[in-house]
């Protein structure tokens, strides 16, 4: 059984349909990369899985448990963690407190504040700073660490490279290998196709709310991806 099964999911923003019958599966321990242009529905899908948006049709199953009727805070208890687009750290809390809030439900697992600091050492010297004073890269590291603190089974990363220097992005994706090594299943949404192709076991391309291409990176040709990405 797949850890994540998205089964015929639709989503709407008012009258605008953002997702059309999305079907995808992610096996436990795998990394799924989702690429696509702006407005393709990538972030919408992650928000729907996490419970920030509702799906108007279909099912979302995590290890066989249906999530679509559950509120977001209960999905965290089942092992879903979303690192949202734009980081959204809690600015008035310190770095350490942000991480502690990530562990609000105290799900058992290996991730602790100390372990996050070992994975993301740029946070250590800022541990007691208000998170609102951090740089963009530091805030992104904090958002990822906060997501890990819930000891998720499924980690959803939404455009973690957005607005960051390439060297910082490389560091994050280096850390991703350590995260995956802990057995966490990852879904990463990116506009940086190169990074996704390097880290993902499976890549799926979205266009206008639909899956238009899916496959192993080694099996996908550049022309296929370009056509799918731009809808040519």
């Amino acid at each position: 059984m797949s850890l994540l099964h998205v089964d015929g999911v639709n989503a709407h923003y008012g009258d605008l349909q953002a997702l059309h019958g999305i079907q995808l599966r992610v096996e436990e321990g795998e990394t799924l990369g989702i690429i696509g242009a702006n407005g393709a529905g990538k972030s919408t899908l992650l928000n729907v899985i996490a419970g920030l948006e509702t799906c108007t049709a279909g099912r979302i199953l995590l290890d066989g448990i249906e999530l679509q009727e559950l509120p977001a805070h209960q999905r965290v208890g089942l092992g879903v963690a979303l690192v949202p687009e734009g980081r959204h750290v809690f600015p008035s809390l310190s770095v350490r407190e942000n991480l502690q809030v990530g562990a609000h439900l105290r799900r058992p697992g290996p991730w602790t504040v100390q372990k996050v600091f070992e994975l993301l050492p740029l946070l250590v010297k800022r541990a007691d700073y208000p998170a609102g004073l951090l740089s963009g890269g530091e805030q992104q590291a904090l958002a990822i660490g906060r997501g890990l603190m819930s000891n998720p089974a499924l980690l959803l990363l939404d455009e973690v490279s957005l607005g960051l220097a390439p060297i910082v992005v490389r560091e994050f994706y280096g850390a991703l290998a350590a995260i995956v090594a802990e057995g966490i299943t990852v879904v990463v949404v990116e506009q940086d196709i190169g990074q996704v192709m390097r880290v993902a076991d499976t890549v799926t391309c979205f266009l206008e709310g639909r899956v238009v291409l899916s496959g192993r990176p080694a099996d996908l040709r550049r022309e296929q991806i370009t056509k799918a990405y731009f809808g040519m």
Partner: protein
Amino acid sequence: MDWVNAILQGVMLGGFYALFATGLSLVFGVMKLVNLAHGDLSVLAAFIAVAILDVLPINPLLAMALVVPIMFVIGWLLQRYILDHSLGPDPMPALLVTFGLSVIIQNLLLEVFSADSQGLDAGRLEDEALSLGGGLTVGWFPLLTFVLAVLVLVGLQLFLSRTRTGRAFRATSDNQRVARLMGIDNRRIYALSMAIALGVVAVAGVFMGIRTTFAPGIGPARLIFAYEAVIMGGLGSVWGTLVGGIVLGVAQVIGAQIEPGWHALAGHVVFLAVLAFKPSGLLSRRGAV
């Protein structure tokens, strides 16, 4: 010496205003809810004390041990079953609901207790004073009010900064949507914050009932002073609430010292001055919820 005594009384009065304002600040900080019924809820607490004392002939300060949990439960239920439904991106529905609540509470109290002024008798504590030497005196009751206000604020600050639920309050205050991604149940946080706010306002209401007479319609006047203290101190700042209360209390007492009719006016003038020169408040966002 009269002036020093006046300032001392003003500081004590500031503690009283801080008790009123704390709940308001907490609810606004967590939910961004402007509660127009806050003053009426303090009057409700005072009348609950009246009802208890009709049955139990005890000191009102002891009756507070019953009033506080009653108001705590009222706060929880009020938030869960009424105010939760009005919260959203648009602040107007919640504002209107609390306005309606204010009207309902006033009329309910009028119906049950009539328009007659009431008071709570704490005995000798109200009359006796502590001599500080050099001609300075402070009443035991105002001193008790101030000390209790500080203890409440210390307790609240420790709760917000040192506990898991307190961190959840602060996270929800920063970003309600992302707080849900941490496993925080916003509805539970809102209900708890309203319950704590009304627990504190219960203390303020009982102390108000001891300090002065009260009637069903005085809630809105209390609300104005509470908001002035909150805004002067800095929205969402726990210690700002005390600072704002003290500034307001001192301004009012000094105003009354100059001219007895200037008591409230002096407070309003200082409030406007703070708004003009430091609109974010004197301690904006430090030690904040």
